[in-house]
């Protein structure tokens, strides 16, 4: 059996982690569920978890983000309870990306509406030949 653990990060204005947990319990699927501060961790067989989370994503396509997680929920090597507190490895990345999620949600909405964003011009470094020309011009003007 191919077991997999997935993290569901919820950054939604209409869906709470508790709503998703109830929906998961209603499905009666053979999975382990843990409600956390950022969302939910679901662990179980790959096909079951993938299909289940596919339906969960439909609850709010722009506010629910999913990624795989290596360790299962409550893993003693990773769990804060057994490591005497402190941020668990992976927390800082999640915290940083969580701040950007509202922007990503609005970007996904804009993409579905067919908006094409204006591409910003990136600042490029000064070309050597261009610099040589400037030096020559400056020397000639003196």
């Amino acid at each position: 059996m191919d077991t997999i653990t997935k993290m569901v990060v919820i950054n939604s204005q209409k869906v709470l982690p508790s709503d998703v947990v109830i929906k998961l319990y209603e499905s009666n699927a053979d999975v382990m569920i843990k409600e956390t501060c950022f969302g939910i961790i679901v662990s179980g067989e790959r096909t079951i978890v993938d299909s289940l989370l596919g339906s969960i994503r439909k609850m709010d396509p722009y506010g629910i983000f999913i990624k795989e997680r290596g360790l299962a929920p409550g893993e003693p090597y990773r769990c804060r309870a057994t490591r005497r507190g402190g941020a668990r490895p992976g927390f800082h990345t999640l915290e940083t990306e969580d701040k950007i999620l509202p922007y990503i949600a609005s970007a996904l909405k804009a993409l579905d509406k067919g908006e094409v964003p204006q591409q910003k011009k990136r600042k490029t470094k000064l070309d050597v030949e261009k610099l040589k020309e400037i030096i020559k011009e400056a020397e000639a003007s003196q």
Partner: protein
Amino acid sequence: MKVFIYPTNSLILSDLVERFGHEPLAIMSEIGKRVRSQGLDSPPLNITPEEPKLGLKYAAVEVPSGVRGRMALFDPLLSKADAAIIVRDPVTSFGCMGCARTNELVNFLIRAKKIPLLELDYPSTEEDAKEFVYKISEFLKSLKPAEEKK
């Protein structure tokens, strides 16, 4: 197609790649394989003395074992990658992403592999995010759709 993402533990990249119908190659799956294998020799990640030996493919024996150990995790991802999305200079580099030399080596190996590559910056505003998501969607649309999982 299998798309390598960097930072390889990124929630946003992993989610977007999956959302647009491809398979993200993320470090979490490699860690999961090691953690779920029966009998942990060296918890928590079960990096045994065999792993740094695998890393010798990429780095010499004088190189710190951390680099070789990390490269042993990255090796299956790099070898399977059909395309890649790289975020330049990500703010966070913790855990498996916490070694600057490994990160440089991974970026170099991806560029040297000559596969379709998209390089971006993390968005800091809504407008940047729109461009970020649009570029990723266009890049992923240009790739062939992912093979159906068996």
